[in-house]
């Protein structure tokens, strides 16, 4: 069963609520709740289509970038054993044919934790890797932006 897709369904729910419910509600807290819910449903509709690919890209990019930055400046890694463990875990998961979204999410949390620690070391130590790091952040933020509909 491919049609309607989860995205089609969610978008349809948002349209239906907007067209048939919102107009019936007076201004106030209840209407605000429904409007916010419609916004969230639309956001989920958009994110559903790209969530998996974005996670996959993010894991790959962060893994490779961490490796490259640590190779260029080993001083940015404070806990080498933890760093190596996360990298090994990443290679193992990404070596599979079809890693699940759940696996990618769990791995990404680990990788981002490692990246956070490395980022603070880069900033504190005035490492030359700051340029590569900020470029990586730009790519991460662009991908995260693809998961959202924020007008901000």
């Amino acid at each position: 069963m491919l049609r309607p897709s989860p995205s089609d369904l969610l978008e349809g729910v948002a349209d239906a609520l907007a067209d048939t419910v919102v107009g019936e509600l007076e201004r106030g807290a209840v209407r605000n709740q429904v409007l916010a819910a419609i916004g969230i449903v639309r956001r989920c509709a958009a994110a559903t289509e790209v969530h998996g690919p974005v996670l996959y890209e993010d894991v790959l990019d962060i893994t490779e970038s961490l490796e490259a930055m640590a190779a260029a400046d080993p001083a940015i890694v404070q806990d080498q054993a933890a760093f190596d463990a996360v990298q090994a875990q990443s290679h193992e998961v990404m070596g599979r044919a079809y890693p699940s979204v759940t696996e990618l999410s769990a791995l990404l949390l680990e990788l981002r934790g490692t990246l956070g620690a490395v980022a603070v070391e880069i900033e504190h130590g005035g490492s030359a890797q700051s340029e590569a790091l900020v470029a990586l952040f730009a790519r991460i933020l662009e991908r995260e932006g693809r998961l959202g509909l924020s007008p901000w």
Partner: protein
Amino acid sequence: MNRADRLTEGLTAFLVDRLGVDAAPEVTEVALISSVGNARDPWSFTATWRSPEGNEHRERCVMLLQAEAGQLETALGPEFNAVAALEDSGVPVARALWCDETGDWLGQPFFVTAFVPGTAAMRPLRVEGGVPEIRSVALDLARAAARLHNFDWSQTSLVDLGVVTPEGAALAQLAQWEEQFDRQRLEPHPSLAYAFSWLRSNAPIASHISVVHGDLRFGNLLYDDDRLTALVDWEMVHLGDPVEDLGWVYRRIWTPERSLPFEEFLAAYEHEAARPVDRETLRWYQAFSEAKHAMISLTAARSFFERSTLNLRHADRAETLPAFLDRFYELIAQ
């Protein structure tokens, strides 16, 4: 008994306690004010009472009730005291009337100010080509900010907000929001961790210490036609570097840039304050503002995640982070 009836009863009892039985206070016309604010629930009502001299008083009032947990949890007392202290300062504020921090009277803490006419509408900010009335209000805002930042707080109750030094002003704010980051985040957010680290390494020294509104912007002011009538929402008021407010006031999501370019706003501010704004310090506070708003969003998201609020406007607030952090990195690259 509905909520308005319960508030009427509670407010009447509160006013009897404050004004005395002989004042015979009455509360009428209690109504919820439509608002998109999060930290306070605003209500309007009319209070009538008799003075000891026998004169009848009638006051249209606004009451701000402490809301449930949300994007920020701030005490009402400092906010009320700030509004009261600024009454004759030339800064447009609503007249402070009464405050209850105990929550004993209405079930939640609240304070009351006199009603001020005006709207907080944001839609005109987005009109292509600008709106003359908004331009005028934005200039009023620049002048009001200058008067606020020139206000001598040292002989008022505002010292209770916590005195900081010029060297420590930026770092104190940073520490507060970084502590929130450690406490509220639901995931590591490495780009925000780096942002806080960068801000700490590059913190400016304040030219002087002033009252800082903390959330100074369109949306937190009332205007009537082309005049600013009151600055509201003082829940983040503190003592600090005045440039902090200037780094916040023109953020992209509430900027009046289409009606008044930021440089013109700054010129009006500098003229009124009789003091230049250091542009490097301003850029630091603009970057800080993005990290601060990111933290407000993460706090809101966590509140919903933990179900300490069921306000759906908070549920997906983490979605705003990429835009704020994008802007942060744009600013520090300049």
